[in-house]
């Protein structure tokens, strides 16, 4: 399994809801960010939660988001970031320039 994204790549979190146990928080859905690191491969928690094997494993990325793009009126420096761990199937190319 090859990583679809590399550190520095602009990405966007997929919008939209998926029923059940999901590890992608709503406040990041549709938001642009940038890949910080590739954390590794893990069994898919969306399947594990229901007693399934969670395989094949999914790539997990640490993605950085500009805080002032997430929250209107954010108090802080202009280049501050929030980082979250997002599975590859929740990411698409594009997003933050």
């Amino acid at each position, binding site marked *: 399994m090859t990583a679809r994204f590399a550190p520095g790549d602009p990405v966007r979190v997929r919008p939209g809801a998926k029923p059940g146990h999901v590890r992608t928080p709503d406040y990041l859905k549709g938001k642009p960010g940038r890949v910080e690191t590739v954390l590794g491969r893990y069994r898919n928690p969306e399947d594990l939660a229901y007693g399934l094997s969670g395989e094949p494993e999914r790539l997990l990325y640490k993605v950085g988001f500009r805080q002032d793009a997430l929250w209107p009126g954010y108090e802080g420096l202009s280049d501050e970031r*929030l980082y979250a761990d997002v599975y590859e199937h929740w990411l698409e190319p594009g997003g933050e320039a």
Partner: protein
Amino acid sequence: MSHGHDHPETATERATSPLAARVRAMEALLVEKGVVTEAEIQDNIAYMDSRSPANGARLVARAWTDDGFRARLHTDGKAAAVELGIDAGASPDLVVVENTPEVHNVIVCTLCSCYPRAILGRPPDWYKSFEYRSRAVREPRAVMREFGFVPPEGTRVAVHDSTADVRYMVLPMRPPGTEGMDEAELTGLVTRDSLIGVSVPRTPAAQS
């Protein structure tokens, strides 16, 4: 026993809240279905009770005094912990984020209460509160102010939302005025809250 069970009374059994009642019911069902045994539950409680922020303080103090250890802590946090006799077992990977004059890190889990329990033990109650989980991401500076901490001017705040399979711990900066202190003394300066990032370690003056 008056309530008809033949296992030792646990803390959850003594509690009377609706949540405790639900936990007891879940526990009874899981045991009845053979998913876990009472002994495994008791062993796990004992294991969690044996973990504490003191473990994190030892990791930090060693990293402050040993550059090689600090590098290994960054490469593989759990493996580095084993060097100090702290075995996190089959728990999730530990990623250590280091504070610098440029960046101050703070940890939250907005989805639930992910925390490096296998090393630091149970998280504080406020870490699991809706208030902390919602505010730490959108107004981290206001939250830190309430813990009595204001980052130095020009220091960026980085929030880490531990949403998935990695657990985070902050490696704070070594406080000024600690040049003459040994590892054991430094360990005493590291607080639980500084490992989460809502504040920083004590200074020698504040401790005495």
